[in-house]
Each structure stands twice: as C-alpha cells, then as structure tokens.
C-alpha cells in the first residue's frame, strides 16, 4: 500500500486518536531514553518534542497494530543522530570508532576478554553510580544497553530501531557490557569497594 493511500485512509480525528492512544503512553520511556542519550534535561525536552511532532507529521507511515514504541524509539534515535549528536561536544564518535576497531581486529576476535569484577561489588553500588558508569560509555554502546536492559526491547526490536542486523545487536551488546564492567570496576575501586 503506498503512503498516499494510507494517508487518505486516516481522517484528522483518526490521526489524533492514533497519536493519543498509540504514541502518548510511551512518553515517559521516550523521555528517559532521550535523557540517557543526551544526559541533559533541556536537550531531552527538545528531542522528545521534535520526535513527537515528527511522529504526528508522518503518522501515515505508522501501521496500526505494529509496535508503536519501537517505531517512536527509531525516530528518536535518528533525530538524535542527525540533530543532536552533531552539535554535541561529546567525543563519543571518536571513542566508538576506536573501540570498534579494537574489538573488530582479528587479534581481538577470539581473545578471552574478561573484567575481574565481583557481583557483590555491583550489588553494593547505588543507582546513581551505575548511571554514572553507563553515561561514561560511548553513545552507541550506551544505546544498546538502555534499549535492552532498561527498556526491555528484544534483539529483533533493537535491530529495527538501530537499523543493524541482529548479530550486530548481539555483538555490540557484548562489547558494551564489557566496557560497562570496566567502568563499574573502576568506579567500585575508586569508591573503596572490594571489586
């Protein structure tokens, strides 16, 4: 079905109804995602507002009965990459490329890579400390952890949101978690916990 036909299929009343019924219930998750990506409340406000206005403008391409939350998260992620990441001072893109190169190298592929961190030390950390460690990750790695562990998306949903194959979701999550463990270990050690 072409976009034009779908568009004709929705009356104005239907567009408002879909927006309120399908999109608005996800606004807290969307805001949380935006805040975790930007780490700034004002930027999160702008990003969520832009995303919802885009979602309304392109509501004709949303198919009722499909996963509205994943559809919205995909728009938010794309808006973040296109509009916010460029002006962000965060050097994450460089870090990400360096890390990707390191992990993708032949030598790194089969090397056992473990972080010596104890479960007890993680249990001793409070939420702010875990959030600080998460925020310290390059944004692409932070994103997969937010989507999987905080928002509870499946690998298939994450693949759609991020436009990457499921295998890449899995390997990026693995890398992200190794990095997070390193941050948590450093954090736990600096706080005097027995990591």
């Amino acid at each position, binding site marked *: 079905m072409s976009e034009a036909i779908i568009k004709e299929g929705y009356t104005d009343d239907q567009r*408002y109804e879909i*927006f309120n019924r399908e999109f*608005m219930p996800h*606004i*807290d998750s*969307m*805001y*949380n995602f935006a*805040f*975790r990506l930007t780490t700034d*409340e004002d930027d*999160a*406000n702008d990003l*969520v*507002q832009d995303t*919802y*206005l885009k979602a*309304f403008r392109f509501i004709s391409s949303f198919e009722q009965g499909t996963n509205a939350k994943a559809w919205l998260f995909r728009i938010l992620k794309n808006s973040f990459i296109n509009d916010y990441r460029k002006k962000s001072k965060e050097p994450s893109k460089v870090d990400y490329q360096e890390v990707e190169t390191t992990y993708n190298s032949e030598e790194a592929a*089969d*090397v*056992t*890579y*473990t972080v010596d*961190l*104890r*479960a007890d030390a*993680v*249990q001793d*950390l*409070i*939420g*702010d400390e*875990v*959030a600080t460690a*998460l925020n310290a990750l390059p944004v692409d790695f932070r994103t997969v*952890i937010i989507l*999987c*562990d*905080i928002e*509870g998306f*499946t*690998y298939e949903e994450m693949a759609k949101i991020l436009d990457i194959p499921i295998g890449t979701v*899995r*390997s990026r*999550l*693995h890398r992200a*978690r190794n990095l*997070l*463990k390193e941050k*948590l270990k450093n954090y736990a050690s600096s706080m005097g916990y027995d990591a």
Partner: protein
Amino acid sequence: MNAPSNRPSAEGEKQEQPMKQHCEHHAECIKKIQAILDGEATESEKEHFRLNMDKCMPCIQTYHLEKCIKEALHSKVTRKPCPNDLVAAIKAKVNS
C-alpha cells in the same frame, strides 16, 4: 563451560567431574550467558547451558555478575519521567 561429555560410563556409576577453575572459551561463554539472561538464547545454547552450567567456576561467576549488572540497570537506575509541561506542550502543538 565444558563441551558435553560423550565418554561412556559404567552402569550405575556417576561421572563426577571436578569443577573447572579455568574456562578456555570464556569469551564465547559470556556471549551465551548474556543471551540466556536476555531471553534470546537459541534452544541449543539453552541446552548447553543447562548441561554445563554447574561445571565451570568462571562461568558460574560470570552468570551471577551479568545477572547482577542487568538487574542493577533495570531496577537501580532512576527512570526520568517526562515533565508534565512537556506533555502539555506537545499536545498543544499537535492540536494547533
């Protein structure tokens, strides 16, 4: 985790393997453990996990660590709710 043992055992004799203190393919095991905790493991990964989980100390420790981190992210990291004025602003703009 150990590969499943195919060694024949004498009738009635239970094979007791000593707990492994070193895992030679731990990187792969971590990936499988994460997939299991994410509810995304394949049937063969789940079966391998079920048969071998209690035989390898590094994998047992990894399972508990990964589970702890996942739970900490889910339950300890504060979720920021959307401010009410932003909800109102979005509704106003859409309806204008």
